[in-house]
């Protein structure tokens, strides 16, 4: 009898744990609500979330430990335009899966991470104007029977990336194919190389980066969606958004934007120049 009472008493210990969970679940205000422009001007330091596994856009250079790519250069150019040349710019690697939580928690001030502007995401965060126009495509091993999205029929497997809208798009474009989702582009490409799928899909810019690294794979069938990339920032950051859009216009006018485009995409054969803004 006494034993039974004891074990029930233990259950009460769960109560504080449970209330902690509920409190966490209804997370309150945090650093993400502060005005970014004011804070960066005070601290002279800004942090961007960028991809670290995506060739051409944001790729970690293992030798130097620095992330390099189109997105990184855009982020640098914009930061300098808004806050001056002296501002300290930090980069935090994000994945499609982690970027929104990191932004909303205030770990990063903004996201330049090959992120398409979609209505669903717009409910959660705000976007700048379009800074890059991509489109979704597929890559296959050279000699594959699959020539375009239409060949992805029943019995085929296509590899996508978690947390990216490319998965929804491929489900619409090829409803009978099985979609396997891996955590990032590098993982997905490795899985494709291990024959875990017949094709891999994501935005064409990223795919061209992959095939430039391994020419035994090729992009087939052209793009089947339009994917305008925007810079993601927290809701309620009107001042920051206006400043970013202004900076985008300025770097476009003074030729900085074109220089960055040329630096990363000029050498890529097969990459359709017209998709760039």
């Amino acid at each position: 009898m006494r034993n039974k009472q004891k074990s029930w008493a233990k259950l009460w210990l769960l109560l504080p744990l449970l209330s902690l969970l509920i409190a966490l679940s209804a997370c309150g205000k945090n650093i993400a609500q502060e005005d970014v422009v004011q804070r960066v001007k005070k601290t002279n330091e800004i942090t961007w979330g960028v991809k670290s596994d995506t060739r051409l856009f944001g790729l970690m250079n293992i030798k130097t430990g620095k992330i390099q790519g189109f997105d990184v250069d855009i982020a640098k150019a914009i930061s300098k335009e808004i806050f001056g040349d002296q501002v300290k710019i930090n980069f935090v690697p994000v994945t499609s899966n982690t970027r929104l939580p990191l932004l909303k928690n205030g770990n990063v001030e903004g996201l330049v991470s090959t992120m398409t502007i979609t209505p669903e995401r717009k409910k959660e965060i705000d976007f700048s104007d379009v800074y890059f126009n991509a489109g979704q495509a597929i890559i296959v091993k050279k000699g594959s029977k699959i020539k375009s999205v239409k060949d992805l029929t029943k019995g085929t497997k296509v590899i996508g990336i978690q947390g990216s809208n490319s998965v929804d798009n491929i489900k619409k474009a090829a409803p009978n194919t099985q979609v396997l989702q891996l955590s990032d582009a590098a993982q997905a490409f490795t899985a494709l190389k291990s024959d875990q799928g017949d094709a891999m899909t994501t935005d064409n810019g990223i795919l061209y980066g992959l095939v430039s690294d391994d020419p035994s794979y090729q992009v087939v069938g052209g793009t089947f969606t339009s994917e305008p990339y925007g810079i993601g920032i927290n809701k309620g950051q009107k001042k920051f958004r206006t400043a970013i859009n202004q900076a985008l216009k300025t770097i476009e006018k003074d030729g900085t934007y074109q220089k960055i485009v040329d630096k990363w995409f000029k050498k890529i054969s097969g990459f359709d120049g017209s998709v760039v803004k």
Partner: protein
Amino acid sequence: MISILTNNWSALLEGIKYTLESSLIALIGSLILGVIFAMLEISPNKTVHIIGRTYVEIFRNIPLLVVAMFFYIVMPRFIPGLDGFTAGTIGLTIYTSAFIAETVRAGIESVPVGQMEAARSNGMAYLQAMRFIILPQAIKIVVPPLGNQFVNLVKNSSVLAFLAGFDLMYQGNLIASTTFKTTDTYLAVGLLYLVMTMPLSYLMRYLEKRWAKNQQA
């Protein structure tokens, strides 16, 4: 959090199905492999002992994710058609079997040497003595730590998420990244894992108590 559970119930249920399926296969597989390698480890034959020992030391000391990745990325070159679920479950089985082998070995070795000597001097063969004298005593000792391994196994099956293995963690990742409700989703997923592992913990505790009573009587 409730809305995450209700809106995505079919996806979560699918995840639970794959998690349980993988855990069950790995549980049976690793128990068989574990007992076999435990027997090899305690074998008086030096070569056999070394084979058992090597297996256990290799797989006990490599992270599960590495073992699973190996089966997912490297092995399909030799075995075509090895998908994420299968690769993950094989990795999980082998990894867990190394720990089970250690647990069973410790259990067998904790039975006093005199038991074996007595059985042998009564005319039993080595395997007979094992089967009728040593193992029945060892099982009772081994059950509590074995229960730990089983609970760990269910939790470790979340490694499938990295191999597109459709398990609960994989579904959780997808739900989190499409609804953007990260905190709620992972809380819900954690809760569902708890629902799966708690009964297992209690079952093991119950068996432990029952066998302890048996021993006294």
